[in-house]
């Protein structure tokens, strides 16, 4: 007990120090390095405390603050995302009205005479989800439309793409949870936990078929093709998770392709779809696609990082889940460069007793998390850079802010 108390007080001192560092905006690279070291130490300390939630939350806040300061200073040749206060536009507020309607509309779409099926299909559309994808898609629509017509409006067809993307995403979540046997999703009991595996799968298919019908009703062949591609990508990505690659370089490529297919493809292709519907020219369709792709990649990288650094209650789903499923994500892959013993663990998919704990420990000791974070930052910077092609509007600013939100989200 006494030992725990000691660790706790040490942790407390560390935290204070970090806050001090972050408050003094005079951060330079030396300090950044120190910050990293401290982070490592703290993560290790947290390990002793079994990842106490409260402490963890504190640390995360402290670090995001500190890292934010770091980023402001360490800007090199690449232009920094503009994060100053006067430019910030709250993305959720800008499309709040449309988002509020989203769940209602989805519920109208999934209506069926089979009571239980309807119940499952609308289970996750309780209005408590983040609705990140629809928000992104609606804002991108507005920003692109403004660029073309000087009017920040949202076409009905574009709003429907946002809805369809959320439905496809949810359908894939329902299936993923059966495959991974997870019991919690979005902070509540998962569909497979309540209605069991068979019905979960069938209801997921139903949701997908409804999405596909809504997609067809938009009546644009190209848009149908673009979004059907994402469905295929989602499945192929899931297949890629089954295998791991022998070769180290290949392994990273495998991970990135998987990440694209599982997460970024939906965002990239939805952005492309709304650009097609807005009748923008080829170049801007490309910009929209690339913006979605970069945000998507960054989004998943941060997700993979949070799996190591966050705690269950905060995320609304179990953490350290990837390792337990045998998946090696960016932090582990980077850490394996420092600690080669991780290679064999990756190859046996962390199946042996103690592998998961050992891997977590090694990742905490290594620079894995910060490397992965740097990669995520890189993608966000690229996303913001791409946005500079568009005329300045509130929506564009909100899209820039999304890049910031993606990097700094806690859940």
């Amino acid at each position, binding site marked *: 007990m006494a030992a725990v108390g000691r660790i706790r007080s040490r942790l407390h001192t560390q935290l204070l120090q970090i806050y001090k560092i972050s408050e003094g905006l005079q951060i330079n690279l030396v300090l950044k390095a120190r910050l990293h070291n401290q982070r490592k130490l703290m993560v290790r300390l947290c390990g002793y405390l079994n990842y106490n939630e409260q402490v963890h939350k504190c640390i995360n806040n402290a670090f995001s603050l500190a890292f934010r300061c770091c980023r402001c200073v360490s800007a090199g040749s690449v232009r920094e995302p503009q994060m100053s206060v006067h430019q910030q536009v709250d993305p959720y507020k800008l499309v709040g009205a449309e988002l509020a309607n989203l769940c209602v509309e989805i519920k109208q779409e999934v209506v*069926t*005479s*089979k*009571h*239980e*099926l309807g119940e499952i299909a609308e289970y996750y559309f309780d209005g408590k989800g983040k609705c990140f994808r629809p928000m992104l898609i609606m804002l991108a629509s507005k920003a692109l439309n403004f660029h073309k017509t000087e009017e920040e409006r949202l076409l009905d067809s574009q709003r429907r793409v946002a809805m369809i993307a959320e439905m496809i995403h949810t359908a894939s979540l329902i*299936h993923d949870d*059966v*495959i991974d*046997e997870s019991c919690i999703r979005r902070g509540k009991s998962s569909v497979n936990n309540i*209605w*069991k*595996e*068979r*019905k979960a*799968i*069938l*209801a997921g*298919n*139903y949701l*997908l*078929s*409804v999405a*596909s*019908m809504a*997609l*067809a*009703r*938009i*009546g*644009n*062949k190209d848009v*149908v*093709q673009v979004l*059907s*591609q994402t*469905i*295929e990508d*989602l*499945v*192929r990505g*899931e*297949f890629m998770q*089954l*295998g791991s690659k022998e070769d180290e370089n290949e392994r990273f490529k495998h991970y990135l392709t998987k990440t694209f297919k599982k997460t970024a493809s939906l965002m990239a292709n939805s952005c492309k779809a709304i650009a097609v519907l807005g009748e923008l020219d080829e170049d801007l369709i490309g910009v929209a696609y690339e913006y979605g792709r970069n945000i998507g990649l960054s989004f998943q990288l941060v997700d993979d990082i949070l799996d190591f650094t966050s705690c269950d209650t905060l995320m609304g789903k179990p953490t350290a889940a990837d390792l337990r499923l045998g998946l090696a994500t960016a932090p582990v892959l980077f850490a394996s460069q420092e600690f080669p013993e991780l290679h064999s663990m990756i190859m046996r998919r962390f199946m042996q007793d103690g592998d998961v704990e050992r891997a977590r420990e090694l990742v905490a000791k290594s620079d894995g998390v910060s490397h992965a974070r740097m990669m995520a930052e890189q993608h966000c910077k690229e996303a913001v850079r791409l946005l500079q092609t568009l005329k300045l509007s509130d929506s564009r600013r909100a899209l820039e802010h999304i890049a910031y939100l993606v990097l700094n989200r806690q859940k």
Partner: protein
Amino acid sequence: MALFLSINYGRTGTFIFRNRDCLKLCTLNYHGLRVSLPSRFVSIFGTSRTSNWTKAVSDAEKLVGYPTSFMSLRCLLSDELSNVAIHIRKLLGTRHPLLKTARGFLDNGKQSLQTRGLVVLLISKAAGPSPNPSGICKDQDMISGIYPSQRSLAEITEMIHTASLIHKGVVNLEDIQPGDGSRKDMEFGNKLAVLSGDFLLASSCTALAKLNNTKVVEIMSKAIGNLMEAEFTALKNRSGNPVLPRNVKFSDWSEQTFLSSGCLLAEGCRAAMELANHSELVKDAAFTFGKNMALAQQMADDIGPFLDPNQGCTNISITSGPIIRHVESHPNDIDDKLFNSSEGIEPKQILKLVKSGSAIQECAKLCLEYGQRAIHSLDRFSDSDAKTALINIIRAATNEQRGVR
């Protein structure tokens, strides 16, 4: 339990290997890309009772130029599914339904997976060239009187069916029985089933999108939705086994049959007409044909065990047409035991009960009626080999009670 398993898969076909050599033969042919040879397989196992059907189908296959691959080869030979094929071996010795479904690809006997595709091809051919040829359906692209897009659609119809078959075989882990296999194996089986079903569905989504016709995408998506709804009716429990609700109506049977097989065939036929820009009347006729063919086929399958004294008892589904018909008209005949599905039903008792009334005769009559309606809907099409083949298939399905499956 065993009884219920066989009932469960009765609707979709039971697949049994008579000996190992047949398995080899099938696999060889499959790897040699001669994928669809169900009629030949039937003749290997064949009984005289099935010969009409076999002949109708194999004659029809000749008409459509080359047999429908019973799933897109692109799909089967993809890395993803070949991987699954390797993994499925791990399920040997368990009772995971995926194993049965996978075997069904090789030996699908009577309830041939490819009938759906074949019917879509035949009706495309029977409807003839497009009245307003557009960019994607040019007459010179037709092979044996069928547009490439319609061939694609036939494959998609098969893929959707297979995907739903696979997904219906996902097992609820808490319901595993001691003899089924270890929990770990069943989990693994589920994983494979979910992934391979998803893969087929996703492939059909992209294949549909490539047809460049949003109406067709909508029609076929609706069919997928209907297939899923079929598993949430009052006639199915959560494991997909049939249950007989009190105050069951015959319309429940028709709805169940339409949702679980009719919709795909009917919408597939309609979509094939859509692809060739046929008139609304022709589209509706094709839809009616598909729907009634499915009803006729299901009814023929349901009646079969009641007429066959040898193997009838074990193959009776509690939600088969004759039983529902009987219960509807004699609600007091059925005591509580019958409704307790977990106990199982006593087949001999049921058989006796249903035979005491007129339900079997009524159902046989209905079966013929469905067949007639299907044939009648073809009046809109001018006479052709393809039309005759469709009529022969319907006749074969309704005239004989197709026993061995």
